C-alpha cells in the first residue's frame, strides 16, 4: 500500500482546503460560496485532528498508559471551531435569503450589478 502512505490526514486536509478555495474563486453562486467555506472549515478541522496523532492513540478519557493518549487540546479547540462555523453558516444563510428576496438572484455578479444601479 505504498500509494496510501503519502495520503495521510494532512494531505487530504490540504487538498480539501483547495477544493474549497476553487469553489470560492470560480463559483458565482452564493450558496455554493457558503458550501465552499464550510468545506474549508472541515478541512481545517481534519488537519487539527491529525496533530500529534499516532496509530496507537486512545481517546483522552480516563487514566491511560503514558504517551498513548491522543492530544486533547486540538479536540477541544475544534469543538469551539465547529460551534463558530455553525453560527457563521446560519448567519450567512439568513443574509443570503434576505439578499435573494431583495435582488432576485443567487449570482454574485448579478447582485453586484443590480446594487450599482
Amino acid at each position, binding site marked *: 500500500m505504498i500509494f496510501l502512505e503519502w495520503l495521510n490526514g*494532512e494531505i487530504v486536509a*490540504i*487538498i480539501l482546503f*483547495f477544493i474549497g*478555495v*476553487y469553489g470560492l*474563486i*470560480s463559483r458565482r453562486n452564493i450558496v455554493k460560496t457558503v458550501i465552499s467555506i464550510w468545506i474549508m472549515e472541515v478541512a481545517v478541522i481534519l488537519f487539527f485532528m491529525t496533530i*500529534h496523532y499516532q496509530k496507537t492513540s486512545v481517546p*483522552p*478519557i*480516563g*487514566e*491511560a498508559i*503514558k*504517551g498513548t*493518549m491522543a*492530544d*486533547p*487540546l486540538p*479536540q*477541544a*479547540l475544534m*469543538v*469551539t471551531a465547529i*460551534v*463558530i462555523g455553525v*453560527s*457563521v453558516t*446560519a*448567519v450567512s444563510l*439568513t*443574509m443570503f*435569503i*434576505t439578499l435573494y*428576496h431583495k435582488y432576485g438572484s443567487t449570482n454574485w455578479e448579478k447582485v453586484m450589478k443590480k446594487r450599482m444601479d
Partner: protein
Amino acid sequence: MRKVITLIGSLMMLGIFLWAFAYTSPTLNVEMFTYYTENFIQDTGAYNAVAAILLNYRLFDTLFEALMLLISVIGIIYFSRHGGEDHG
C-alpha cells in the same frame, strides 16, 4: 473558460502550498500535550480531558463560543426579512 483558468490557478496555489509544506518543520515540542495528559485529572477532577480543557484550562474560549451562538441568534433575527424590529 473561466472555470478552466480558475482550476489551473487553484492547482498552482495548491502546488505552492505543497512546496512550502514539504519544507515545513516537524514537531519540535509537545509540552502542552504532555502537560494536559499527565495533569488533567489531578488539576480538575474530570476524567474527560476535552471537558477539562473546555471548562477549566481554556474557559475563556468557551465563554466567547457561547457568546458567538448568542450573537448569531441575534444576527439571524436581525438579518431576516421578517421581524427583528420589535426586538430591543
